[in-house]
C-alpha cells in the first residue's frame, strides 16, 4: 500500500511539473495559436540562472537571476514570435520556437558545459506525509502547482481576462477595435508563461539535477498533455498532465516481472498513450464536436 501511495506521490510531483509547462503552453496558444516549444529551454535557462545566482551570492540573488532570465527570454520570445516572424501560420511558429529552444540549449551547453549541476548539495531534505515521502522541492512543486492550476482555471474560464486572451488569437484586429491593446496582452502572456516555465525549471532542477537539455522531454510531455486534454480546454490540460505521468509510472512499476520496464520506457509510454487517446478522441479527452467553418 505504501509503495502504491509512493507511486501516486511521485506521479503527482512529475504531473505538476508537466502541468506548469502545459499551462504556459496553453496560455501562449490561447493568445497566439503558436506551440511555443522553447518554453522547456527557457525553463532550463532559468534553472541555470538560479544556479549562477547561488554561485555568486544567496538564494535571493538566485531568485533574482532566474526572474531576470525568465523576463528576458519571455520578452525575446514575444519579439521573435509576434514581431519578427509575421506570418500567422502556427506550425511555422512551432519551427521558429523549436529553433529558439535549441539555440538556448546550445548556448547553455557552451557557457556551462554539458555536465550536470546540482542546485542542492548533498541529500535532498525529505518530508514524510503519512508514510509517503516527498522531497522538499517536490512539496513546493505540489503547493505552487495547486495554486497555479486553480488560478489558471478560474482566470481563463470565469473572468473577462480569460475571454480577452482567447479573443486576441481569434481576431486581433477586432480586439484592437474594441480599445484593447492586444500587443500588450500578448507580451504579458509571453512573459508570464516564461516565469511559470522558469518556476518549473528551478523546481525540477532542485529535485534532480541541471543539464542543458533537461527541459525538452518535459516540454514534449507538456505538449502532448495539451493536445490530449484538448488544446482549448484548460480542465482537460490539467487532467491530461497527471494522466500522462500516472499511467507510465504505474506501467513501469507494476508491469509483470517478465516485462522489466525501466524509466527509459517513460517517453515511449507517453507517446503510445497519446497515440491511443488521440486516435479515439482527436480533439482531446473532453472534446465536444464543433462545426467546422
Amino acid at each position: 500500500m505504501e509503495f502504491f501511495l509512493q507511486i501516486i506521490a511521485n506521479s503527482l510531483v512529475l504531473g505538476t511539473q508537466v502541468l506548469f509547462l502545459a499551462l504556459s503552453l496553453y496560455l501562449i496558444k490561447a493568445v497566439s495559436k503558436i506551440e511555443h516549444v522553447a518554453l522547456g529551454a527557457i525553463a532550463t535557462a532559468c534553472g541555470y540562472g538560479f544556479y549562477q545566482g547561488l554561485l555568486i551570492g544567496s538564494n535571493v540573488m538566485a531568485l533574482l537571476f532566474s526572474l531576470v532570465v525568465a523576463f528576458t527570454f519571455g520578452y525575446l520570445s514575444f519579439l521573435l514570435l509576434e514581431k519578427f516572424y509575421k506570418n500567422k501560420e502556427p506550425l511555422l511558429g512551432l519551427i521558429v520556437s523549436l529553433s529558439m529552444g535549441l539555440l538556448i540549449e546550445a548556448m547553455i551547453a557552451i557557457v556551462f558545459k554539458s555536465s550536470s549541476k546540482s542546485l542542492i548539495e548533498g541529500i535532498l531534505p525529505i518530508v514524510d506525509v503519512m508514510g509517503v515521502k516527498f522531497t522538499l522541492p517536490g512539496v513546493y512543486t505540489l503547493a505552487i502547482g495547486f495554486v497555479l492550476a486553480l488560478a489558471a482555471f478560474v482566470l481563463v474560464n470565469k473572468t473577462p481576462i480569460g475571454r480577452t486572451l482567447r479573443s486576441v488569437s481569434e481576431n486581433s484586429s477586432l480586439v484592437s477595435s474594441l480599445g484593447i491593446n492586444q500587443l500588450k496582452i500578448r507580451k504579458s502572456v509571453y512573459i508570464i508563461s516564461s516565469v511559470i516555465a522558469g518556476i518549473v525549471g528551478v523546481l525540477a532542477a532542485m529535485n534532480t539535477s541541471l543539464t542543458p537539455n533537461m527541459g525538452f522531454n518535459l516540454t514534449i510531455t507538456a505538449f502532448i498533455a495539451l493536445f490530449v486534454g484538448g488544446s482549448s480546454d484548460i480542465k482537460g490540460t490539467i487532467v491530461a498532465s497527471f494522466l500522462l505521468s500516472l499511467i507510465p509510472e504505474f506501467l513501469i512499476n507494476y508491469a509483470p516481472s517478465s516485462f522489466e520496464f525501466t524509466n527509459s520506457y517513460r517517453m515511449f509510454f507517453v507517446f503510445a498513450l497519446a497515440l491511443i487517446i488521440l486516435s479515439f478522441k482527436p480533439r482531446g479527452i473532453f472534446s465536444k464536436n464543433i462545426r467546422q467553418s
Partner: protein
Amino acid sequence: MTKKSILKIENLHVQLGQRMINQDISLEVFDGEIVGIVGPNGCGKTTFFNAISGFAPIDTGLVSINGLEVNNLSPSKRAKQGLARGFQNVGVFKEMTLEENLIMAVENALELPMYWMFSSKHKQKVDKLVNKALKDVELLEHKNSLAGVLSGGQLRLLEMAKLNLSNANLLLIDEPTAGVSPVLRNQLADSIKQLSQKHGKTIVIIEHDLKFLFSLVDRVIVLVDGKKYMEGKPKEVQNDKRLKEVYFG
C-alpha cells in the same frame, strides 16, 4: 417524355453539433434544369450543398446522384458519380497557373494515364480542351499566370471553366456573384447558361442576388431556418409575399 432525375434528395436532415442545420428537405432536380436556392444568411444553404457533395455528414435522409444513392460515398467518389462543385470562397488553386488548374479538371474527367504529359497525342488533346475553355471565358491571355493574380470575378470565370471541363453532369454552384463586379456578372450569367444549354449540365445554384438568379433558373427553392419554405417558378416565388417577409422582414 419523362426527364431523367439527376439529383434526388429525400427527407434530408443534417445536424452539426447540437444544432439541426437542415431539416426534412426533399427535392428533385431533372436533367438539364437550372434550380436556384435562396434564403437568408445562416439558413443552411451551403451546409445543404456540403451534405450533397459529402463534406457534411447526413443525419437521416437520402441523396441520390444519377440514380445512385451516395450517402456512404466520400466526396471524391461522389465527384466520380458525376457531381462537380463550386465553392463560396472559389474552388481554384491560386498557386497554380490557369492552365494547371484546368489540366487538373481535365485529368480527372478524361481519366488520363499518369504518363500522359509525355505522350504528344494526349498533350495535344488536353491543350486543345484547355485553350478552348479559357477562350470561352476570355482568360486565354492569362493561361500561364498564377491564378492568384486574377480578380474575384475572373476567378469565378475560371471556376466556371473548370466545372465545364469536368465530366460531371450535375453542378453545384455556391454564390457565384459574391465579390464580382456588375460587368462580369453578365459574363458569369452567360457562362452558366452555356453550361446548361450548350453542354447539357444540370445546375443547382445558391445565390443572394435574386435578379441575377431569377434570370437564369427554371425553378427556385427557398430555405428558411434549414427547412424548405417554398418552391416554384421564379415569377411565382418573386411575387410571393412570404419571400419578401423572409428577406425584408
